[in-house]
């Protein structure tokens, strides 16, 4: 791929042309080739290897979570534009006939659906906090989890690095402010070294989440002023606006307060998470090293295939 003139759309087209991604008719929802999945699997193994000394507890959540949990987490305050709730038909036969009639007439039949108790998971760590809180006090040394989930964000785009359904791998540390910040520091270093070992250009920068509206502008400024979020950026669909492939988030005691995550002495827990955007890392590799994985630089291949 000609990296000098790449745009989001040309990158997407070249991924289609090389049978790495497959169109589905919806921007941001794509089929993945076997090779694409193999790259993700090998990258996951690399992450597992780097994180192994920390002995995290692994939990795999499905891509849907409790809607009540999403509501209580405050997600709708900050990101109403990205959330997705699952709706389903629960009417009787008469309602069913009406639904089919509306569908046949090209009318909006979706009003006959009702919200279920399921919402799509927006970030891998959201289902974790109430699960941990239900298990009682957090031990003094804190807790460490390793998560992986498909996530949904409603932001249709022709930028392949901005998918609506994508996988996020996370490590989540719950503990004292010092413990969780030390954890984040260690991953800022490990994450950068890991991406550099794959022969990818990257930089780490302070960042903010895409909070909704004018109030969101202030939330974003607050987040930046306090250095709560850092991102590891790699040029994927644009050189000027590199893509966040890893993120390093310090939540202070937001989730501790929301879910009552406490130590035995009653003090509130802080939390931090490190997220790996798996599709984004794979896209960065294809974008910089080309569509043929056999022709990737030996150093990158050695890290992913031979270790």
């Amino acid at each position, binding site marked *: 791929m000609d990296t000098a003139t790449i745009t989001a759309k040309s990158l997407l087209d070249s991924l289609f042309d090389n049978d790495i991604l497959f169109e589905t008719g919806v921007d941001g929802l794509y089929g993945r080739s076997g090779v694409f999945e193999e790259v993700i699997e090998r990258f996951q193994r690399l992450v597992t290897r780097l994180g192994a000394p920390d002995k995290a507890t692994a939990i795999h959540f499905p891509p849907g979570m409790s809607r009540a949990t999403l509501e209580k987490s*405050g997600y709708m*305050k*900050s990101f109403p534009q990205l959330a997705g709730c699952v709706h389903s038909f629960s009417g009787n036969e008469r309602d069913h006939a009406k639904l089919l009639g509306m569908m046949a007439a090209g009318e909006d039949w979706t009003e006959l659906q009702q919200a279920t108790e399921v919402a799509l998971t927006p970030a891998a760590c959201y289902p974790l906090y109430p699960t941990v809180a239900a298990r009682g006090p957090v031990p003094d040394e804190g807790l460490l989890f390793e998560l992986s989930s498909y996530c949904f964000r409603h932001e249709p785009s022709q930028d392949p690095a901005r998918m609506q359904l994508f996988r996020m791998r996370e490590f989540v540390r719950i503990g004292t402010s010092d413990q969780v910040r030390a954890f984040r520091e260690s991953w800022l270093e490990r994450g950068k070294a890991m991406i550099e070992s794959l022969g990818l250009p990257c930089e780490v920068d302070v960042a903010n989440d895409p909070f909704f509206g*004018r*109030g*969101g*502008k*202030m*939330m974003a*400024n*607050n*987040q930046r*002023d*306090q250095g709560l979020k850092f991102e590891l950026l790699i040029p994927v669909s644009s050189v000027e606006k590199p893509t966040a492939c890893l993120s390093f988030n310090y939540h202070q005691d*937001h989730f501790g307060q929301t879910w009552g995550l406490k130590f035995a002495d009653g003090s509130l827990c802080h939390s931090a998470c490190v997220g790996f955007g798996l599709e984004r890392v794979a896209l960065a590799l294809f974008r910089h090293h080309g569509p043929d994985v056999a022709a990737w630089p030996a150093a990158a291949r050695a890290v992913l295939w031979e270790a």
Partner: protein
Amino acid sequence: MRLVKLEARRKMIDRIRSLFARNDALPFDIEKLSDQDNLYDAGMTSFASVQIMLAIEEEFDTEFPERMLTRRTFASVANIAEAVSQLTEQSN
């Protein structure tokens, strides 16, 4: 002249304080804080500061420009009053 100005500022601060008193998401009693006390230190969350921001815009019929939507602007009652007087003086 100066007394009139001070009086106006006191009134504005009272209006700002009443907005805090009406917001039940705040973990503190605004009456117990001075105009200079740091509201974030007192437990105001980022989201609560957004609610306050929107309430102030409505109360004073004004709109904060982006450059003023910072942590510092909303860090104390005095800072908010300063920002509001800048905005209302500009529009007068």
